[in-house]
């Protein structure tokens, strides 16, 4: 189909959908007056039942924790997929330096950049860990904190350059961290079964409200998610940044064979 044919077909479809959407919108429950009792019940009961103050974390890591396990699996699955896709023909080897466009002027990294990156990377990582640890108390949690902590890795690349970045971070360690985080989550769901409880049942001591340790099993699950997310994002950053390195002779040769086959 050419572009105009596509639009000619899309336009009537969108008109019908707009009419349908208008009808749905007019029938929606009034904005700001939700009908659901689900959320309100969680808000009313769970602070007492689980001694936690962050209800979103309670929903994620306790009430609907199997959803979160699926979500975690999705992230790990997508990251593994990205590794397969990007590393497939490139392999895991390293080169001396990042690739460079021919003719572009190359400037030495300034001391100020190095210093700022070192300071900021450390602070950012610790801040991320802090957000993870307080997941059940204040806004944040494993996903958000993990993403913050992992973004400090980019600053290592920026401040130290390609070869140091590759020396500091190892893909097999990051993959192990990622898998370990996911495994702890799965075990946290499985172990209660062996003792006759429901899967992922929160049977640990619940701790104190507003305390760093509050929410029992949620603390472990939250930390596991944080660890897995740090590993996942680390792997992801590494694989995408590897695309910037100078290609070695022998990389990407499969394609030529494919042509010849």
């Amino acid at each position, binding site marked *: 189909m050419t572009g105009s044919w596509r639009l000619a077909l899309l336009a009537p479809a969108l008109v019908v*959908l707009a009419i349908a959407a208008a009808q749905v919108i007019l029938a929606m429950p009034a904005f700001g007056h939700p009908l659901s009792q689900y959320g309100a019940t969680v808000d009313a009961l769970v602070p007492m039942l689980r001694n936690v103050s962050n209800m979103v974390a309670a*929903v994620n890591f306790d009430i609907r924790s199997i959803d979160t396990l699926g979500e975690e699996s*999705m992230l790990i699955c997508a990251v593994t997929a990205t590794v397969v896709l990007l590393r497939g023909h490139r392999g895991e080897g390293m080169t001396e330096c990042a690739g460079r466009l021919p003719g572009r002027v190359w400037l030495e990294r300034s001391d100020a950049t190095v210093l700022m990156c070192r300071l900021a990377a450390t602070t950012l990582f610790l801040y991320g860990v802090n957000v993870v640890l307080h997941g059940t108390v204040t806004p944040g949690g494993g996903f958000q904190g993990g993403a913050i902590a992992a973004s400090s890795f980019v600053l290592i690349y920026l401040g130290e350059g390609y070869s140091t970045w590759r020396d500091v971070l190892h893909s097999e360690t990051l993959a192990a961290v990622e898998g370990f985080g996911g495994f702890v989550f799965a075990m946290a769901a499985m172990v209660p079964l062996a003792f006759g409880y429901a899967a992922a049942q929160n049977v640990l001591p619940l701790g104190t409200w507003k305390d760093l340790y509050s929410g029992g099993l949620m603390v472990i699950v939250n930390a596991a998610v944080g660890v897995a997310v740090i590993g996942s994002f680390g792997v992801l950053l590494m694989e995408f940044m590897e695309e910037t390195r100078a290609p070695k002779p022998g990389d990407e040769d499969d394609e030529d064979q494919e042509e010849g086959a």
Partner: protein
Amino acid sequence: MNVLAWCVAAWLLGVGIYGIVTSRHYVHLIGCMTVCQSATYVLLLGIGFRWGAGPPIFYDHPPGTPAVDPVMQALVLTDIVVGAAMTALLLAIALQVHKRRGTLDPQHLRPLRPRE
């Protein structure tokens, strides 16, 4: 005001679809997917919203204070992770396609081609 949030969600979905259909570049197309997904964020957060309510985090204010629906917020968090995962995957595919075909124009890309 009552219908604004729902209209925004429908609009985002519509323009996202329009962007995908008229796209001439995979990366632009992936961006349009994200626009479509934003529609679901607006919709879900709108469904959980309650007038005069605060965040569902009882740290500064005691339990019992009116709060918005935490379930919807948790679902949006999942949605965001889905989006991040999907975008990473699609960008990786786009990178590899570009290496092999030398173009990212959807009009020139198709999996299996007739002979001749």
